[in-house]
């Protein structure tokens, strides 16, 4: 701020004028002088310029400075800034740098990022869908021993242990007892107590009965979901396509990110 500064041509201000001027908004006067005051400020600015000799001098000086600045002669350049072939070659950089620069260009980035993002999402969805599609196939054979067990129990006239109450034992259902690995006894709830689902009681005797059946070769040892999934999904093209798409998109995104970091020019901030 330049409060109290008098213009060279203004008449000397009285102490009263100086005191009054001390509280005047010089920035408003400067804006007014440059025709840059807002409508709401115009009355106040006019009052300052018309009522205070110092503010009037400031306004006049501001205009004068603006004109004088515009009229400043331009200093002459002595160097020629045209690029030589060698400089141009050096600035162009290697093929890799040019590729990165192209990737980092705003237009390319603007197009590439959403497309790669969508492709990445699609790839992940495809891979998940492919995996999920393999899981039911894996689950079905695992329940076959249960069905055979129900059939055996139907023949004996007793309901199958672990069969849900009120459910037709002939209907395929997932056993509440977790399947064990091949060659192992099926897992039981501790102490034969009802499982967390409360869907039936499994006793040690029944367990032995089942083990005997298995050992006798009446029921094939259940295959685990893990072994089946690996087998079934091994050739699923959805998983391959999805994974490939996701990886490629991720690669493009990473390359784009790397390019932006690598060729970032501080002068283009």
């Amino acid at each position: 701020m330049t409060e109290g500064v008098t213009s060279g041509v203004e008449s000397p201000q009285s102490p009263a004028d100086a005191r009054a001027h001390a509280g005047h908004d010089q920035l408003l006067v400067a804006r007014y002088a440059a025709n840059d005051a807002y409508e709401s400020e115009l009355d106040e600015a006019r009052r300052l310029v018309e009522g205070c000799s110092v503010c009037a001098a400031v306004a006049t000086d501001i205009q004068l400075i603006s004109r004088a600045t515009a009229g400043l002669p331009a200093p002459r350049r002595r160097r020629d800034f045209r690029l030589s072939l060698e400089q141009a070659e050096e600035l162009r950089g290697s093929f890799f740098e040019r590729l990165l620069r192209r990737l980092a260009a705003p237009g390319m980035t603007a197009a590439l990022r959403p497309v790669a993002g969508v492709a990445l999402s699609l790839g992940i969805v495809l891979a998940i869908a492919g995996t999920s599609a393999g899981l039911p196939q894996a689950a079905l054979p695992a329940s076959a021993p249960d069905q055979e067990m129900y059939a055996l129990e139907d023949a004996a006239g007793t309901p199958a242990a672990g069969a849900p109450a009120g459910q037709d034992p002939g209907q395929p259902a997932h056993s509440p007892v977790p399947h064990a690995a091949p060659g192992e006894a099926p897992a039981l709830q501790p102490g034969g107590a009802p499982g967390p689902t409360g869907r039936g009681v499994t006793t040690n005797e029944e367990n032995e009965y089942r083990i005997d059946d298995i050992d006798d070769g009446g029921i094939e040892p259940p295959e685990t979901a893990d072994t089946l999934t690996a087998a079934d999904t091994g050739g699923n093209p959805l998983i391959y396509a999805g994974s490939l798409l996701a990886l490629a998109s991720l690669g493009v995104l990473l390359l784009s990110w790397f390019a932006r970091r690598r060729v970032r020019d501080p002068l283009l901030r």
Partner: protein
Amino acid sequence: MEDSSRPSGASLPGQAGRGAADVTGRRPADEAQHARDRALVQRALAGELDAFNELVLHYQDYLFAICVRVVNDREAANDAVQEAFFSAYRNLARFRGDSFRSWLTRIALNAATDVLRLRKRRPADPYPEWEDEAWQPPADEDDAPERQAMRRNAAELLRRALAQVTPDQRAAIVLYDVEGYDYQEIADMTGVSLGTVKSRIHRGRLALRGLLADNMELLRD
């Protein structure tokens, strides 16, 4: 160019009824210049170095004038302009705007700011080339020697005062008063808001007025 960002104001006695911008003479938007620049950029992108060098020929005086006023040193300004053209060449594919001139100005201002930041301090004499004829206003043959001397004196005083305001204020004043850009263009070039640009210009002028208070008479002539 019509400056729509400027609110309506009042005319002071002695004022031409237009803003300072008009006093300095706004240049009209030059579509032909933009079209020419875009064509040269396209050719340069296709690998024609001559096309880029033609752009350099068009803008090197202009960029040097801005940079030397912002950094107050001829050599530093040379470096800034050189860096600006290097950067422009490297990143030509990134030019997307309408005005190559504005894009280049922004790069040059950033380069000048970097130069100032590197120097960290002002030189003892911000204008070591006071006696350099290149800095002197062109003499009018009809002018009396005394009058020429006065004009030179006024220009030197104003340059010294400009060198003492903050770099941001100086850049804004140079772009507005000397180069004739409007507020919005300066805001775009410097990456600050419109209000900040206005504030820098007005505060800068007030600071100049404070620095020149004892010599305002010279500017009146």
